[in-house]
């Protein structure tokens, strides 16, 4: 495999792509929706918090869209808490303490829940490792067999040699 970066355009493109990738990675770590603080709790304010919570009784339903009467009452509760000056974190903590961690979309990394975050990257890295190892084995054995072939090879046909020359020139 050749890695010569003799082509200047190639180098620029690669660096540009790497810069874009880096920017993307950084952005994905720091990008969070901005939170506007509002003294009077509008529907939007309530929803912004409710959107981050999940209905404590229905499965996998965000609190801001759940149509049940219970959820309406919970949204009213959030409105009440906001008007009393509670912060977003306080409200979320209240719901967690009342109804358990199922009300948030990302379980806190305590106890068994730690596995949620750790296992996928581990498995993916393991898969990548397996792939890499298999690849190394393939290319090593193919290089070995190619070397063996070239040793065994009878004197090349003159025309084949010339053809190869021509093709190399055209590349």
């Amino acid at each position, binding site marked *: *495999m050749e890695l010569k970066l*003799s082509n200047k355009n190639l180098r620029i493109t690669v660096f540009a792509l790497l810069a874009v990738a880096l920017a*993307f990675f950084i952005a994905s770590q720091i990008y969070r929706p901005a939170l506007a603080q509002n003294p009077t709790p509008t529907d*939007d304010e309530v929803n912004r918090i409710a959107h981050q919570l999940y209905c404590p009784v229905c499965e*996998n339903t965000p609190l801001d869209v759940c149509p049940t009467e219970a959820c309406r009452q919970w949204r009213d509760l959030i409105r009440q808490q906001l008007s009393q000056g509670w912060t977003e974190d306080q409200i979320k903590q209240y719901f967690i303490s009342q109804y358990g961690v199922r009300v948030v979309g990302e379980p806190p990394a305590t106890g068994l829940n730690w596995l949620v975050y750790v296992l*996928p990257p581990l498995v993916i890295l393991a*898969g990548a490792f397996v792939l890499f190892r298999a690849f190394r084995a*393939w*290319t090593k054995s193919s290089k070995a067999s190619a070397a063996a072939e070239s040793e065994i090879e009878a004197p090349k046909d003159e025309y084949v040699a010339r053809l190869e020359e021509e093709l190399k020139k055209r590349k």
Partner: protein
Amino acid sequence: MLAEIGYGILVVAFFVALYSVGAAIYGERKKSPAIVESARRAMLLLWPLITLSAACLIYLLVTNHFEVSFVYEVTSRSMPTYLKITAWWGGQAGSLVFWSWLMSAFASLVTLRKWDRDREFLPWVIVVTSITTAFFVGLAVFYENPFAFMWFDKAGQVVKAMIQPIGTTPVPLPADGNGLNPLLRHPGMIIHPPMLYLGFVSFVIPYAFAMAALITGRTDDRWIRITRRWTLVAWLFLSAGLVLGSRWAYDVLGWGGFWGWDPVEIAALMPWLTGTAFLHSVMIQEKRGMLKHWNMILIILTYALVIFGTFLTRSGVLSSVHAFAQSAIGPAFFAFIGVTFITSIALVIYRWPELRGETEMKSMLSREALFLLNNLLFMSVLVVCFWGVIFPLISELVTGQKITVGPPFYLRATGPLFAGLMLLMGIAPLSAWGHSTFKTLGRALWKSAVVALVITVVLFFTYTQNAIALTGFFLIAFVLLVTLVEFWRATLARMKTQNENFFVALWTLVGRNRRRYGGYVIHVSMMLMAIGILGINVFQVDTQQSLSHGQSIKLGDYTLTFNDLKQFPNMVNGQEERYVNRAEISLSENGKFLTVLYPRYDVYPDGQPMTIPGLYSTLKGDVYVILVNWESSSANLAPFKVFINPLINWLWIGSILFIFGILIAAWPEREAELVTARTRRVHQTSAAD
């Protein structure tokens, strides 16, 4: 009477399926074509039998036979007839029969092909398809019987059975049924389960041939070539099912989005992920004779995930938006998946030496290496999805604590993976089978990359500074450019050498290379879909306000004015089918009047609501307004939620093009073309395709 007949036919079908399995195995062992033929005929008998049984069920549904529990659960007098028919798959018991009906149909279709060269596969294909059909029919016969009647036991609980259990009394004939879940009465929802089931069922066919190949020892790529079109068609149906489900979510679930990373959505996505990986990976086996082990594992995984997906949706183990009543079906599914998976893997291990590859991978940038990377990324997305769905169940089992794994987890984990896949979509078409270098690849794609970068910079100054969006747009532009340039260059070459005009050249080009250019059309369509996905995920804005008569909401450049609210019952067949709350909203943009929108909040007799948005759709995006509830609504004051979903319609446009692309790729070729294509099997070290 009809219920008993319908059930009896189903029982007969179950035993016929078992016979088919037994006869196929016996006939193959005894080398008796006559017995195998008997098995085949038994298998062919299944579809007519299940059709008869289904016909009984549909008749009962349409004629309001509420003494049958399934009819009671999913129909009501006020439903229009066409909906009563579609209620067949509107509940668990009926949908099991529907699954079996489709499976037996496809199994029968497979026998229509010419088997001359592949006679040895036939018994085992029959075995696999008949076992699967027997399983689903068996579930209906033993666990979730759609023909069962309802009985009261001594505690007053309802028990479902065909024959009156001891100590029970019959439930008096209900005056009316429960009615179909109103969410299921939308056109997108009517067609979504059939599409998904078609996708699930058709993936059983390549799996059956894979098992046949393992058992008979014919581990060359014959089984792949036979099932190539089946795989494409299966993938088509599964993709269509996913898109339709998304459109349905957008249209009636009223939360302004199309994909919520709900466990049941993910259950249908998982076989799609392995299916897509499989589609690409088999090309490596066909072209280079490699990855035979991996292709076997992929199709086994796809089959397992298909059954698992049905299990997740049907068994109530998740209790999500889709769940129907919990039942004893769960352990049966679990056992079936376990047994088939372990047996299949055992077969792969048994044939491991015979699955050795014919050539070796030489270059890390060759197309086969990039396809492998593609597979790794798809598998990684699968791992994230699988774990996110399973973990809450494990947590509940082990700690008793329920947890929710929601969209932020999935988006953060799969986002970079999908970005990687998009990058590959731009690079892989330019790499060669066997060998590619950094230099050759770089030379091929640097122009597209630079133009894509320029476009991104332009977007930075004119549209957005959001890093995720810009990265996404860069990748989309890159892939679009690379793919369209491929079309362009090849068409141009044809125009010069064959003296054809542009359209003839393009047509012939695509016609001669259907798989390649169909694939390119699919890639282009995915990029259009990505535009829509990016638009709604990054740029969606929303607001909620209560409006009094004549008041307006301003969002972005749009103004929405509340004109009126009409509230009235909707009558069907003399019954109130639902109570309608329909608001009238005027929409204008920058002061210019656009249109009137009618968001609706419908309430069904059982209390179930349905939120239907008023939708204004353009290429630029959607204005999406819903009436949030009705209890506090009147013509004087009503709460509204308005979304602006930028670029969302590119998602739907892309999905239509996607179907088109698959049709191109799957379109049958004449036999002569196939022969020349096969003799071009690559054993060279470097050749562009």
